[in-house]
């Protein structure tokens, strides 16, 4: 009896549909959670843009040009400046992001751990971290990459 139930096509189909639903809902929930973080980061980044990077040219409704910062959890790009305990870097989304160095930030270059003072404008870095309330990224890990021959971490656009 139990064997017949377990071999039933309808049971298999129902389980498959349920699993698909669970997967879809999990993906939806994950997307919502990331989207919320992203929207928060973009909002705070936009509010503090003038404070950190100078007053930019804005659109007709006062919005910032371009698509805004993409990744609130990291950045791969070129260092524009180092100000105190913060690094301003331009990433693949072509927007400036402030990466804040905290006491827990690890900065590495090749196989060594280095200090913030070793990061210079023009360096190519990859950072991961958490978005903060000011639209900056509190860095957890920063890796300085050796400069490639074409001078850019990312291909020329």
């Amino acid at each position, binding site marked *: 009896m139990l064997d017949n139930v377990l071999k039933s096509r309808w049971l298999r189909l129902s389980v498959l549909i349920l699993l698909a639903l669970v997967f879809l809902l999990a993906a939806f929930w994950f997307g919502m959670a*990331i989207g919320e*973080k*992203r929207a928060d980061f973009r909002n705070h980044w936009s509010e503090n843009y003038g404070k950190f990077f100078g007053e930019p040219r804005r659109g007709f409704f006062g919005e910032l040009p371009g698509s805004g910062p*993409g*990744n*609130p*959890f*990291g*950045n*791969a*790009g070129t260092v524009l400046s180092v100000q105190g305990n913060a690094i301003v870097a331009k*990433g*693949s989304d072509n927007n400036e992001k402030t990466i804040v160095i905290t006491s827990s930030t*690890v900065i*590495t270059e090749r196989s060594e751990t280095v200090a913030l003072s070793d990061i210079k404008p023009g360096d190519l870095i*990859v950072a*991961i*971290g*958490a978005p903060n309330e000011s639209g900056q990224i509190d860095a*957890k*890990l920063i*890796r300085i*990459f050796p400069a490639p021959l074409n001078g850019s*971490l*990312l*291909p020329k*656009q």
Partner: protein
Amino acid sequence: MDESDRFGKIISELGSPAPAGLLEKILFSITRRERRSAALKLGAYSSASVIVAVLLSFSWSAANAAFYRSGTSQLFSLVFSDFRSVLANWNYFILSVFESLPVPEIISLLISVAVLSVLVSLAVASIRNVGRVRNFGLKHA
């Protein structure tokens, strides 16, 4: 009951004698049509597979370029260079990699792969069907 018996039954039900060689002609015609149909399907699926394979190569190069442009490959390379730090901050690492993924290019690549897989399996099935077309034991078919 084979084709010949069935044919004999149909003819006897019609009540008039069958012209000589009618059964062979009918079977030959069926075989020829089945072969033509299988060959046409094989040709269509093979041509479509080639076209989709060309599109796939474009999708592949677009996805490859997008991976570099978006910084995904650089972020992912941290797994090899800074494994311990990545492990300690795995949640931010995963979110960062997910956020940087070039989704439209990946979707286009996956769709191309899926369509190509279906077309190739259909083409292989057509090759089998060409070999399986019934001969009915006819020498001239």
